[in-house]
């Protein structure tokens, strides 16, 4: 037990947790900006279609138009403070709760999107941990030494990711049993999803029809999907296993994009798996490169 606890609380650099904060905050900002036209599409928010989910169940009915439009804008403003690591202890929880409400509201119109769950869940955890002790306004350039308080939050984020994938695998087993791996259910889902898009005048996968002709491919993909989802806990065992699983899970989402034109942006960009890897390295490299670039002209002038 003690060894398990020591492993769970193994120290990690402050920069690793800060990197997750930086990337999640920036992603949220860009994501909400790209979604703004959707928030302004009044036809989408017909009162009759309101099916409140999660925290939005607290509302009696849809928000007035002005308040609805304010939601993404306020969340974007808070995403800026979160990304900068400004007053993290106070503003980060406000950001996370606002993001929770905003995306819950967006998902409360008849169709929950499973593309945004991990983003919100990770933000909620990052809001209550010291994710702004490095690379932030709060830190003001101070370097925090590696400590256990930066390690366990990364593992908690990883556990959330892993559980989400395992739940997806269990849902398939509960609804379809092991027969789900024969590929028929997946084939039907891919066909229906693409036809739905075609009939609705939306872009569909250009390669789906070819894949649908080969049932053995669907069988292989169904087995692969189940291995990735139910095998997710292996990512918690070892760093290399985590990397291998992250690549496999990312590949799964690439497959979903290719065959169903469904975008899981948080996963495809890799942020869902960032807590599992040394995600601070690319940012540290960029910062070092920026510093070198600034120093060069100064050195040349001397």
């Amino acid at each position, binding site marked *: 037990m003690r060894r398990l606890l020591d492993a769970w609380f193994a120290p990690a650099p402050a920069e690793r947790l800060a990197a997750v904060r930086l990337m999640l905050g920036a992603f949220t900002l860009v994501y909400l900006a790209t979604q703004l036209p959707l928030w302004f599409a009044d036809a989408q928010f017909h009162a009759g279609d309101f099916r409140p989910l999660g925290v939005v169940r607290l509302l009696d009915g849809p928000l007035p138009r002005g308040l609805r439009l304010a939601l993404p804008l306020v969340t974007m403003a808070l995403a800026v403070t979160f990304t900068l690591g400004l007053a993290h202890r106070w503003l980060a929880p406000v950001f996370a709760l606002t993001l929770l409400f905003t995306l819950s509201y967006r998902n409360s119109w008849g169709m929950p999107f499973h593309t945004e769950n991990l983003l919100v869940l990770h933000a909620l955890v990052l809001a209550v941990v010291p994710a702004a002790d490095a690379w932030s306004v709060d830190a003001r350039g101070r370097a925090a030494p590696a400590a256990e308080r930066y390690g366990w939050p990364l593992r908690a984020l990883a556990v959330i990711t892993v559980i989400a994938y395992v739940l997806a695998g*269990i*849902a398939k087993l509960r*609804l379809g049993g092991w027969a789900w791996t024969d590929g028929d259910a997946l084939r039907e889902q891919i066909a229906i999803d693409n036809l739905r898009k075609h009939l*609705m005048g939306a872009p569909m996968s250009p390669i789906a029809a070819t894949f649908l002709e080969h049932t053995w491919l669907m069988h292989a993909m169904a087995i692969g999907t189940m291995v990735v989802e139910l095998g997710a806990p292996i990512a918690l065992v070892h760093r290399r296993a985590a990397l291998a699983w992250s690549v496999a899970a990312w590949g799964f989402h690439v497959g979903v994009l290719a065959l169903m034109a469904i975008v899981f942006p948080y996963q495809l960009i890799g942020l869902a798996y960032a807590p599992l890897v040394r995600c601070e390295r690319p940012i540290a490299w960029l910062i070092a490169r920026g510093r070198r670039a600034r120093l060069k002209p100064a050195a040349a002038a001397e």
Partner: protein
Amino acid sequence: MNATRWYGLVVTLIAAIAVAWPLTRHPLAGDSFPLSTYPMFATRRKDARLYLEYVIATGPAGARRHVPPELVASPEVMQAIVSVHAAVARGDATGLCQRVAARLAPRGGYRGFDEVQVIAGNHRAIDWFVRGERGTERTLARCPIVRGAP
């Protein structure tokens, strides 16, 4: 155990239990946000049968185009589907038809089309893609695309 470890354990346990909590619910009926049962792609769809209401623009000589979701209800396909279905269910197919026709009227890309139809389709998705077989369609509402005087 020090305070950091206690806090870490409490936060981790709360997060893990919350995310796993949907296991206590039915995968389809118990889905929510952000705590989800993740039921996507899990169910069998017999014969890959798809009943769907959708909107098309038609024109002379059999011209036909499926109207994209952003011109029907929402840029999100699935939410547009829900909106179309809800409009049909509450007997507002004609109203939906007229609203879409009004949106298409000023658009240059729809100059060759003169009518909007709300369709109820019944197709087998695998047959559609693999054998090129179309299912049946029923027109629920039709309305002209009325353009203003030049």
